[in-house]
């Protein structure tokens, strides 16, 4: 199969959607789209478009409220599958979280989870920190996401506001190498103390298992022949 006889790359379906973050072809050809794909020829990773006002439900009121408490708090709002995500600049994170916890109209009293995601293709914001907040007073959930570049992996710690974030941030440091400034005791938690590297990063080398068969080696999982 050559590049010439493959169908043209389809246009992106939604008008305001920016160009795909990445396009991945199949693995059975040299980078050209793959016709063996069950769900299409090539895979496009899109950024979910920014939500437009009115957001609906309590989303508008909460967004307005945080804007009145913190200057310019949200970089962009994404509402997808019934879940609202606030992308917050890391400089604003401490202030935003404190308002989210303390303000009576917001009152997200519990931080359920902090974890990381590594997007190697998201230039300048490779590492994302995702906080899931729970308001028991209003029975609402909110996702707060902040990013940092790979070259400067620093994010302010949520522990002063939400003590529950302690171990979650240690795990995120352990797995992604994101440094949470202001964390009281940022040490490894799941991996051994003397471990090198951060295993959940996409560029973390995966081991292959040498098998005793004429020098053959099972390649690491990310280099095996698989559907993409």
């Amino acid at each position: 199969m050559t590049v010439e006889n493959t169908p043209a790359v389809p246009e992106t379906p939604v008008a305001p959607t920016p160009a795909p973050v990445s396009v991945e072809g199949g693995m059975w050809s040299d980078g050209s789209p793959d016709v063996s794909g069950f769900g299409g020829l090539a895979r496009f990773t899109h950024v979910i478009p920014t939500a437009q006002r009115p957001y609906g439900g309590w989303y508008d009121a909460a967004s307005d409220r945080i804007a009145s408490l913190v200057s310019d708090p949200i970089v962009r709002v994404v509402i997808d599958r019934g879940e609202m995500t606030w992308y917050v600049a890391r400089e604003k994170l401490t202030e935003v979280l404190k308002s989210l916890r303390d303000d009576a109209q917001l009152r997200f009293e519990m931080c359920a989870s902090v974890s990381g995601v590594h997007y190697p293709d998201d230039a300048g914001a490779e590492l994302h920190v995702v906080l899931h907040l729970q308001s028991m007073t209003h029975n609402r959930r909110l996702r707060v996401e902040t990013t940092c570049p790979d070259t400067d992996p620093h994010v302010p710690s949520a522990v002063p506001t939400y003590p529950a974030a302690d171990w979650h941030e240690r795990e995120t440091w352990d797995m992604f190498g994101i440094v949470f400034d202001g964390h009281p005791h940022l040490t490894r938690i799941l991996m051994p103390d003397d471990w090198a590297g951060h295993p959940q990063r996409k560029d973390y080398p995966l081991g292959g298992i040498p098998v005793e068969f004429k020098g053959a080696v099972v390649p690491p999982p990310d280099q095996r022949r698989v559907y993409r």
Partner: protein
Amino acid sequence: MSAPHTDYYAQPGEEAVGTVYTSMGGDWDSIAKEQAERGDELLVINMGPQHPSTHGVLRLIVEADGETVTSIRPGIGFLHTGIEKNMEYRTYTQGVAFVTRMDYCAPLFNEVAYCLAVERLLGIEDKIPQRANDIRVLMMELNRISSHLVAVGTGGMEIGALTMMTIGFREREMILDFLEAVTGLRMNHAYIRPGGVSTDLPEGGIDHLRDVIAWLHKHLPEYAQFCNENPIFKLRMCDIAYQDLTACMAMGVTGPMLRATGYGWDLRKKQPYCGYETYEFDVCTWDTSDAYGRFRVRLDEMWQSLRIVEQCAERLEASIGQPVMVEDAHLGWPGDLAVGPDGQGNSNEHVKHIMGQSMEGLIHHFKIVTEGFKVPTGQAYVPIESPKGELAAHVVSDGGTRPFRCHVRDPGFNHLQSVPLQCEGGMLSDVVVAVGSIDPVMGGVDR
């Protein structure tokens, strides 16, 4: 210059400031000699990770002044198996077989949380057949009882109430027998799949379920009779491991620990999923905020779960023959598997169809089993009420057939943080009670 120290975690060239206490173990005589030379009363005790009373491979580093705990730090990670990383190289359906091994006392909850997140990403939350939802609820509630039985059983054993363990595992075995009859396995079922469940109840499944319900009705009262007013039990449990509502909020504590403070927060009622809003049950609370309260909440919850199980049995009896997998053939696993008497799953009808009748059927089967289905870009966080508290799956998709990232928020991981809050200032023997009342399962904590 301080004395030459053996701080294994010190950087080269670092000097110790003051006395270095380690909890590295070693020869008892030399430890006792060192202690005598130091002349202080501070004792650093390493409890676990291989200790029968730490509820799994949990390491507790305790500083004790006599029998009083002055400082305690849990050390985890001994059961870390890289499940989340592994899932990034498997299809969404295969992911179920990984998440089920996290909290191995409540495997079906892991599966449901993960599958609900994948279903939200696929946008098929409304298209799950009613019978599949009923089976999910049935399996979860039976699993909740068996998980609570382990909690009160092992928790009782750790404080010397050995009978709690023996009768707890007896009842649990009855439930696991039913789960085995349905899924083929006692634990680690990989039964709940994105889109539904892997197989319908077996022939005679409802009758088997009725037997289990009758057995539980007969034997569940024993726990209350043994413990509720037992003076020794109450002396060990009452006012121990106290954690009030404020502390629970700050530490993100949910589940029986939160409900033992008197706050009836239950995601099954507050943010229903799988049709829990259609079942009749009560949220159980207690008002003592201590280990005894958590024990009572767990006992009461078993009865409520049994109530739900009975409602499920009626619904499932009425809906025999209805589908248990989403209709969309691009998502649903092909063929209805049936668990044979040997516990192996297969479907002779389906094999006959794809091998003898339909080439397209064979291609479809091959593609969906080896390649899987694509999940649209986005992320979803779905919390459910597991026996331990809020269990949630955060699944990120980049549009491919495998999760880009899957993080499971395990309640035990979160709750173990509050061990120092509950134990410092208390007696060393109460550490065991506190950890038992938190009920962490290290497979879920370490993942």
